[in-house]
């Protein structure tokens, strides 16, 4: 059940990315038209997301946070985080971010060997910072522009570039390599569930801080991605994107 919406999220993401690419250079007027030419469509997708998330997902996530002890949730998170670190190391290396790649590789080795296969995040305690790199950022480092902003229900904010990266990630495993379908679906469900649970404090903050959640999320997402991509030194012409 959980797994199916992860699969749905992937399908929707693909559909959204395709639609955006096929849409090409449609333009509308407005303050953010350059970064978000499909704002009306995205806004309706955001409404869909809010309806589904608020009705079905948020209560489940809240129950998970309330009833599952934090150490257990940490183990789940650390397991997927360790896999992410490996991808972070590889994509950072392919982007020429050698420092970040080195840290992440160190994290994977330490956490896999000393942290029982990544269940305990020993590396963070040892002060090895998490790089948080991914395919989308790698494409960005190669000079590929972010493309139109997209809001994908059940997935969240992304861009054509970052969404393509997320699809690439889903296909390069390791969960997609698991041949047993029920196991694979459970893993997908857990990965997406963990990601959503991690985002819960952010959802809370947005509820409190935002006047218009859609605008707030879009601006935060684009600022954050550029900040990581340019290592905190965002060129002025990219700031208004």
């Amino acid at each position, binding site marked *: 059940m959980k797994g199916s919406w992860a699969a749905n999220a992937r399908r929707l993401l693909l559909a959204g990315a395709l639609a955006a690419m096929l849409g090409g250079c449609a333009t509308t007027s407005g303050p953010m038209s350059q970064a978000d030419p499909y704002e009306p469509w995205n806004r309706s997708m955001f409404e869909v997301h809010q309806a589904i998330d608020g009705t079905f997902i948020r209560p489940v996530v809240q129950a998970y946070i309330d009833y599952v002890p934090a150490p257990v949730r940490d183990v789940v998170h650390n397991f997927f985080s360790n896999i992410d670190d490996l991808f972070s190391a590889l994509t950072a290396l392919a982007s020429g971010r050698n420092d970040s790649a080195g840290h992440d590789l160190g994290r994977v080795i330490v956490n896999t060997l000393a942290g029982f296969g990544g269940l305990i995040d020993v590396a963070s305690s040892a002060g090895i910072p998490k790089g948080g790199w991914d395919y989308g950022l790698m494409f960005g480092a190669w000079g590929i522009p972010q493309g139109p902003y997209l809001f994908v229900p059940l997935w969240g904010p992304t861009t054509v570039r970052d969404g393509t990266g997320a699809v690439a990630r889903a296909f390069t495993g390791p969960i997609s390599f698991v041949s047993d379908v029920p196991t694979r679906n459970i893993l997908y469900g857990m990965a997406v569930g963990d990601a959503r649970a991690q985002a819960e404090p952010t959802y*809370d903050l947005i509820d409190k801080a935002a*006047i*218009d959640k859609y605008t707030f999320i879009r601006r935060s997402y684009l600022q954050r991605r550029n900040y990581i991509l340019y290592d905190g030194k965002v060129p002025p012409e990219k700031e208004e994107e």
Partner: protein
Amino acid sequence: MRYVVRLFGFVLGAALAPLAMAQEAPDAMVKRVTLEVVGIIKSDPKVQAGDQARIREVIESKLLPHFDFERMTALAMGRNWRTATPEQQKQLVDQFRTLLVRTYSGALNQYRDQTFDFKPLRAEPNASDVIVKTEVQRSGQQPVQLDYGMTKKDGAWKVYDVIVGGVSLVTNYRDEFNAQVQSGGIDGLIKTLTAKNSGAAK
């Protein structure tokens, strides 16, 4: 006579100079205030119990004096700031301030188990606009950069922007405010902010 005045001026200047020299550097101020507030969060039983009134009191007395809300609001308003009347400006500053206090008081408790790393300030000695960089470390998670845009006002350093992991508060609200002003004018924005602060809006 003129000599006496000049001498008096000189003596006065000499007496006041140490005051100006002893003024707290912006990074030192951020460090002092952060550690003070984190100390309260960790030790105050009322704050730990989630007593919203007490949390708001801590924010009002310890943090707010170091913020320049007028500049913050003006920056978030962008071009629209100058078209607002003084009365509208005052209302905007008040409402924006209330919104930020509400947001902060909800987030404050999350800082309990975190450690702060204060980065050395990189700025010219007589700069009047600086960015003070800090990093928040949370166990098992990516560290978050927490930076403060600060400016010198009436001899004291004040915060006019908070940048969380590269997301500038002022830049975020500029989009929000702009959209509101475009659809409902400045009064529309004031109305939306007031409604949000009174808990009517989601």
